């Protein structure tokens, strides 16, 4: 059965960790075929939130902030720039009743300067 594991933390606390540990664990999980997708997100200051109401797309700086809304799903996408990501996000059907937070992905980088081989 599939599960989604979401990583939450205070950004300051994460800053003290290097990517090495994460890359090691990630490599292990991928080796045994259990990891279907994994990415690190850029900090929340890079977030953009999109909503569609009455056919109009509204774009706001920052993460989604409604306390009544709960996480319902995810899309990991490829886009050339934020505008394209916004176009894609605004077409996700639940955007018309909820919010879509768009966060750029951060590439993991080990202390030796190595990137993940996927």
């Amino acid at each position, binding site marked *: 059965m599939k599960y989604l594991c979401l990583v939450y933390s205070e950004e300051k606390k994460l800053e003290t960790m290097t990517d090495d540990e994460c890359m090691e664990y990630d490599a292990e999980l991928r080796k045994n075929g259990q990891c279907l997708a994994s990415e690190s997100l*850029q900090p929340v200051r*890079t977030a953009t939130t999109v909503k569609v109401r009455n056919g109009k797309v509204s*774009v*706001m*700086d920052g993460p989604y902030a409604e306390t009544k809304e709960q996480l319902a799903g995810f899309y990991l996408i490829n886009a050339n*720039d*934020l*505008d394209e990501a*916004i176009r894609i996000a605004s077409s996700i059907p639940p955007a018309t009743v909820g919010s879509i937070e768009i966060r750029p992905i951060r590439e993991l980088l080990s202390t030796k300067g190595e990137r993940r081989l996927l």
Partner: protein
Amino acid sequence: MRENSATYVRQTINELYTSESRRILATLIRLLGDFDVAEDALHDAFAAAAEQWPLEGIPANPRAWLVSTGRFKAIDSLRRNARFDSSLSQLADELQADTPDPAQKLDEGVEDDQLRLIFTCCHPALPAEARVALTLREVCGLTTEEIGRAFITSGPTIAQRIVRAKSKIREARIPYRIPSSTELPARLDTVLQVVYLVFNEGYSASSGDSVTRADLSSEAIRLGRLLKELLPEPEVLGLVALMLLQESRRNARTSHDGELVLLENQNRALWNRAYISEGAALVEKALSTRRFGPYSLQAAIAAVHAQAPTPEDTDWTEIVGLYDVLLGLTSSPVVELNRAVAVAMCDGAEKGLKLIDAILDRGELTDYHLAHSARADLCRRLGKQEEARISYLTALALTKQEPERRFLEKRLGELGSAG
């Protein structure tokens, strides 16, 4: 002789900086892909001009020279720093490979670059205050100190806002593009919002002693005019018209001792007629297309006022009609309020008062001092002293601007003596 030519060169460079630096920056940002790299390149280019032009003479196409030099200096600088960070040498290669053709090519699409810059600075994914700060800094060339003073914040706070905005542009990859035709209406809206916000900060300072801060308003008008040159859409014309028409009353809006003067009491001889003609012409142009919007309509209303020789000549029926169209486009309680005031002029204070009460009873505009002062005024005209007093007091409690407070206190005082 040498002294003269060095002076002439220096003067030319200064003039070029004043008139061209923002345009050159816009092009450099496109070529180099980064705001900060482009700003460094701009300064390096002008520094190089100051060194070389006295010896070599002023080039035939100074702007192209500056863009070209700025670009090469940036690539050079990247290569030098690449010794410490290998990823930079790849970037330098990419930038160099993008070799633009000779000078002329750099001149083409300069308007496009300026539009790219404006749209990027006003991108909706940036926080609202950052858009304003970034636009004033990158497009208008104001210093962070000047922006800080204008918005009653510190220069360093503005600087930080700008740094964060540039980081977001980089990290979230906000593209340096003119929006596509489907995206354009919404994106243009955010740009116009920024421009009008800047204008309003200058037109009526949100708190403090003097009612207007002239510099921001003229900056906003300049920005609006630039936008009109680049993108003559009806709402752009409408916004420029609105700003010109409001600005035309600057000299009449306050008395010599800083007191607020209402529209109906203003000395119309002090209105700027040139601005009024320009504004009225733009309104006509905007309305003649079928694609006008709220700014054009507000400008049309302002034009009706501006073209009345005396307050008694004001065509209030026309104004109510324009408000009706405006309400069809944007259901805003503030517009409803303004319409109510106009209705009072056409059909009597009682009708106007009913409309204002309907808004307040819905729970809207209860914190808006102008709603209460408008209500107070209509009550006063109807002889309803006590109700007028209550509304004036409510308005007073809600306004922070000194001239407005003095005006309201004066009205309150007048009530007392009549009662």
